[in-house]
């Protein structure tokens, strides 16, 4: 099959677009969303969407770790594996991201899916998010970010949980299998004990498929993208930096190569639009008031800055980062949950 492409990079680009298309279509269909899940769980006692997210976490973890153990995709080459991370910034970034997604009423991944189905609010949030992400990554905020990172970084003995277990004396294989099975079993048990979720295939099936797509992303960059001379950077579904990178690509395409993340973002917009048009769910929507727009813009800004500090969004750290069992994912995910709680509480007390 790979003979169809002129080189491995082109293969990664095409498969990245297909992966994005699949994610866009399935996420549009299942309305997969951590924010909505938390909101329903905390304020409406409806745990289906949150349990669907837990199921996606379990699937992503199980499949990504199998990919590592059976096909040798070295997840320790991914961005989440840092030997000297800055935990305060990861936590702060997570909180900012969580607050931002509550204010904007959707996280980065969800905004992409909504943008594909005619939601103009999501387009505005995406533009601000991409801009502020690159401001923090390489723009005017970058020197401060680097300075803060330098001040707060802590040297760890290991970059991920299995490595720590190995250092405690467990055999390598067991130290991967033990946390993988423990976490997936706990998450699956919690998700599936709810009869409501079991009766809602849109939620449980959506969660499982999205978990599988995470592993597929690792397979595309880690197996198709593997090359002795010019390996593609290992990555899977994540949205903060890729949205910024896509905006940059639109402006600088003559002097910069396309990448997996760019075709992924384009694929999601197309996939979501296709599914929305086919199902008749396409709907033009915009802001109805100035305060709503203020919240959307501020939310996008917080998500862009926070997402870069936390190394990812709800999907990027919650599913993709978590599936590698990297130490950086735990404070980031905790920060996102905490921020979402703060943001949603604020919204509940100050309805528009």
């Amino acid at each position, binding site marked *: 099959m790979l003979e169809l492409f002129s080189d491995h990079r082109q293969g990664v680009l095409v498969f990245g677009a297909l992966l994005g298309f699949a994610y866009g279509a399935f996420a549009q269909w299942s309305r997969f969303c951590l924010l909505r899940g938390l909101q329903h769980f905390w304020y409406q006692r409806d745990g289906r969407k949150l349990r669907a997210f837990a199921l996606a976490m379990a699937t992503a973890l199980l499949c990504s770790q199998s990919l590592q153990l059976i096909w040798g995709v070295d997840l320790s080459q991914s961005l989440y594996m840092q*030997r*000297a991370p800055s935990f305060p910034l990861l936590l702060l970034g997570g909180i900012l991201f969580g607050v931002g997604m509550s204010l904007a009423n959707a996280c980065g991944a969800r905004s992409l899916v909504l943008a594909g189905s005619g939601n103009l609010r999501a387009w505005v949030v995406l533009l601000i998010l991409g801009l502020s992400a690159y401001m923090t990554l*390489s723009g005017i905020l*970058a020197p401060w970010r680097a300075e803060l*990172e330098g001040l707060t970084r802590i040297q760890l003995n290991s970059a991920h949980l299995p490595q720590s277990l190995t250092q405690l004396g467990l055999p390598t294989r067991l130290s991967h299998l033990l946390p993988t099975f423990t976490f997936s079993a706990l998450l699956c048990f919690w998700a599936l004990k709810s009869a409501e979720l079991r009766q809602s295939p849109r939620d449980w099936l959506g969660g499982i498929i999205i978990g599988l797509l995470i592993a597929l992303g690792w397979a595309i960059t880690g197996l198709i993208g593997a090359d002795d001379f010019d390996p593609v950077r290992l990555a899977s579904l994540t949205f903060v930096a890729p949205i910024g990178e896509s905006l940059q690509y639109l402006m*600088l395409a003559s*002097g*910069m190569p396309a990448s997996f993340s760019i075709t992924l973002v384009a694929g999601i917009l197309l996939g979501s639009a296709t599914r929305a048009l086919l199902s008749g769910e396409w709907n033009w929507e915009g802001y109805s008031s100035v305060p709503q727009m203020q919240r959307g813009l501020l939310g996008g800004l917080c998500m862009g800055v926070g997402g870069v500090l936390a*190394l990812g969004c709800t999907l990027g750290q919650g599913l993709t980062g978590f599936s590698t069992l990297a130490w950086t994912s735990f404070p980031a995910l905790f920060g996102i949950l905490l921020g979402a709680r703060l943001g949603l509480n604020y919204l509940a007390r100050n309805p528009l």
Partner: protein
Amino acid sequence: MKGSLRPLGLSLCIATVVLASSWTFAQPPLPNLAALQQAITQADALETQGLNLNLPLVAEDGSAVPLKVQFNAPLAEGEWITQLRVFASGNPNAEVIDFEPSAAISQLEFSSRIRLSESQDVYVLASSNQGRQWLASRQVRVTLSGCLMSGDEDTTQMGMSQPRIALPRQAQAGKPAEIRTLINHPMETGFRETASGETLAASLVDHLVISRAGETLLRVKFYTGTSANPFVSFFLDQQDQLTFTWTDDQGQQIQETR
């Protein structure tokens, strides 16, 4: 009054256009770069046509910027390119990489990955065996990016390892085809410090020689501006019985024959 000013405005416009176009057709101003100026033998006869330097406009990872040098200007009978030298004006050491082809190489297209410490102009200077020289340049913006500040582990004990050579998959006889090579090596510059403030000693792969039956086809010289794990790709008409020899600054050698 208004009418009398109009011709003046028009002629000013024309003058600006003429001036601007004469600027673009003139020789590029020579950079103030000692290493490059030393390598230029006849500054007034520098040519620009036919020499291309390919680099991204924006590089997010200054530690490995993909570089491609191509040369296809017409040459006289018995004339060939002996050197293609790459210089980076903003690096602590301006020399980046040198390609020294022999007359046996017909398609002059070389790729590698280089280090750029900041936004700057990169130059390539080509010289022929008859003393003609070409110069091309390109500006690259290097941005600060996260996730790239890899740890400060001491790499000075790591020597060369794992040489890799990829011959073209479907080569047609007599047609130039691309050969890619890579060797693992940290290419320690001697500028880097550990967390405790000690300077790490320089350790470099010095050069790579590609030869057939004792005859050198291509020599590539590496400097601190060459990325870790030096990668070189080039084109050859005939791809058999090749010997690849990497030599590091300690005189250690690794040899592979294909």
